[in-house]
């Protein structure tokens, strides 16, 4: 009997560990991309704005993947002969988009809109982590439903002023709860409806 009980407890523990492990969630697993593009270089060192490449993030449901033309805008002049940029030049010459490997992918039955989150004070960093320190991008959050609900239940614990949305390495003020509540009221976030099924499952 003890064998059975310890077996069940052990199975439950393994299941718990497994379901939250990178094997399932993909957290911290860096995906090799067709181009060795480094966010750490472009954002962290050079200080590029997120929206320079992810242009529709404030107005569209998707943040958008930049077309090759965006890359070439600079790289026609900067390091035009770099070996690392060969795939970009090929893509441009052949008029074929680069096939970037998707890192963050929500299931089809989830409706997620970038614009509303950016507008209501959810920082890029809140979901994507310190992009400015990532040579190769990896997920930093599990993107499990429970993780979404953490914020949907209590948005005041997570949102920031609109002008800090793009900031990397933002530190929450000591009066986050108070400021958050003010922002929830100011931005007109309807907390009562944030937990409705149809907010995300439409």
């Amino acid at each position, binding site marked *: 009997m003890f064998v059975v009980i310890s077996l069940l407890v052990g199975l439950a523990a393994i299941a718990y560990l497994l379901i939250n492990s990178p094997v399932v969630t993909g957290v911290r697993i860096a995906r090799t991309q067709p181009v060795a593009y480094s966010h750490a270089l472009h954002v962290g060192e050079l200080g590029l704005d997120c929206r320079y490449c992810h242009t529709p993030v404030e107005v569209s449901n998707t943040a958008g993947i930049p077309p090759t033309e965006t890359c070439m805008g600079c790289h026609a002049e900067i390091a035009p002969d770099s070996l690392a940029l060969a795939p970009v030049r090929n893509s441009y010459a052949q008029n074929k988009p680069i096939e970037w490997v998707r890192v963050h992918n929500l299931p089809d039955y989830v409706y997620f809109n970038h614009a509303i989150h950016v507008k209501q004070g959810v920082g890029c960093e809140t979901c994507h982590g310190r992009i400015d320190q990532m040579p190769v991008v990896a997920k930093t959050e599990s993107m499990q439903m*429970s993780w979404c609900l953490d914020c949907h239940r209590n948005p005041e614990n997570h949102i920031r002023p609109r002008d800090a949305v793009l900031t990397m390495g933002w530190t929450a003020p000591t009066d986050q709860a108070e400021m958050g509540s003010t922002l929830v009221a100011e931005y007109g976030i309807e907390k009562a409806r944030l937990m409705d099924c149809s907010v995300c499952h439409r």
Partner: protein
Amino acid sequence: MIAPTPEPADAIVAPGHTYRSITEKISGIVLTRSTPKPWFAGMALAMGLLLLFLYTVAHLLTTGIGIWGNNQPVGWGFDITSMVWWIGIAHAGTLISAILLLFRQTWRTSINRFAEAMTLFAILCASMYPVLHVGRPWLAYWLFPVPNTLDLWPQFRSPLVWDAFAIGTYALVSLMFWFIGLVPDLAAMRDRAENKWARYFYGILAMGWRGEAGHWQRYETAYLLLAALATALVISVHSIVSFDFAVGVLPGWHSTVFPPYFVAGAIFSGFAMVLTLLIPLRKLYHIEDLVTAKHLDNMAKVMLATGLFVIYGYLTEAFIAWYSGNPVERFWLYNRTFGPYWWAFWALMLCNVLIPQALWFKGVRSRPILLFLVAIAVDIGMWIERYVIIVGGLHRDFLPSSWGTFSGTVWDWATILGTIGLFIFLILLFIRLLPMISMFEMRHLVAPNPDVAPTPLAAATPTGEQSPGAAPASNTLYGLMAEFDDPHTLVEVATTTYQAGYRKIDAYSPFPIEELPVALGLRASRLPFYALAGGMVGALAGLALQYYVSLVANPWNVGGRPLNSWPSFIIVVFEMTILFAAMTTAFGMLFSNRLPQPYHAVFNASRFRHASQDRFFLCIEARDPKFDAVQTKAFLAGLHPAQVMDVEK
């Protein structure tokens, strides 16, 4: 507990049976290479239907439940109808084994094992429907509060969640009750089996059961406790199933008569199903001497009584619909009788109201073939009853603009036939592999019979004459064992031995003997206190779980009702209480009996395999301070046993 001889007129066992003949007859059905031909015919039918079921399920999974007739406004069709039907059938087993045990109805003994197995298989069939209805059966565990990455929990204010808990508890408790009941018989099968693999199979399942006086004492306590707990379940489970309907606001559903009316209907259909199966089986296996005319008569009477309850339910439904003065309720009554489904209603009246009245006549009750036909009518009638309630209630509700009709598709029918196939398959497997009648309980019902006690091995090992010189120094001696013919003698010699100052003694019998633990100076089992504690832990765990889920983990606004709506928590608390108490009882019994125990020295005694069948043994262990190989052997020989054996370690 040594049974009196029953009067021949309502004999529940035909005269002439002994411990040995009962054991041989019942275990002989299983421990033989020859299987009756009709069994194969039944199995072929069952497997054909099972294939149909597998095909249907495969089609359902690849296509979706749109293959069923369910649609607006009839969102529940054949699936829920059949689920409730199967759950109802499942009620006879526990009623027979638990409630009739508490009422000391000894006639239950020859049918309880079979009815309990039927219960388990019917629950399995029933659970197919909600599991398939969720569309993605691999996610059916979402019905239970499993911690998950979605951060979602069951809604404890919903009757469907109560239902999942009620049926889950019922299945688990029935399984424990059935298996605990089987253990002593599995030991008998182990000891009788001649095939090596059969011995392993039954041996592992029997967990080392050896019929010790202390074992039996705790066993009887546990069995009675489980019966009491299961009794509460018989009443509650179908009440809770009826809440699936009664808590809704639909005309024809929203009624307080539903719980008692459903429970009576469940027992009605359960007994009908037991009769449907037992009448052919007792003929096939020639067990008319164990499942006698008296059994059929009694079951027919229970059916008649519960049938009258059901009729009362129909009358109350109609009366309340009229008396309420509510035009929608009155329309429902009219629509049920003369609307598009008039045929179902009148078929119901025929099968459940008219035909069962034949059971008033002794001529019907005493003729198995007539009884069988009545039982079939009730089986069908009870399915139609749920059809009338579900489809009749859903197809026309408050808004005429949303009225519609329903009819089952070919896949609906295939699913029902398929679960019937699954049911027959499991029943046939059960009667081929396990003793379908409880042997150890049947031994209670026959008088101890000295005329069948020739001891074949007595000549080989002459009583008390095993070279006294060889015994003393042996370190490998576990003890000395004496064999007796009947329970009275065993109690007497146990008393004598205890009074002679021996303490490390044990008695082994093929059925519980009430006086034996007293004779051996054993104290009463403390299992009831543990069961009470287990029940209280269950209740608190149930309450804590629901409080945590409804207020902390997943506070969900349902129509502005308070989050801590404790009245709706009562049902899950109740189910958890029963479940925990039953688990404490069952596992506590095994634990305090040190089972499973793969090896024990007493099994080395040459004749010990009869301890699980028809003989009675007393063992004095070598570690007893008073033990002396020569004197103790002489002492045992002085008790006039059939023989005395050395037991090696």
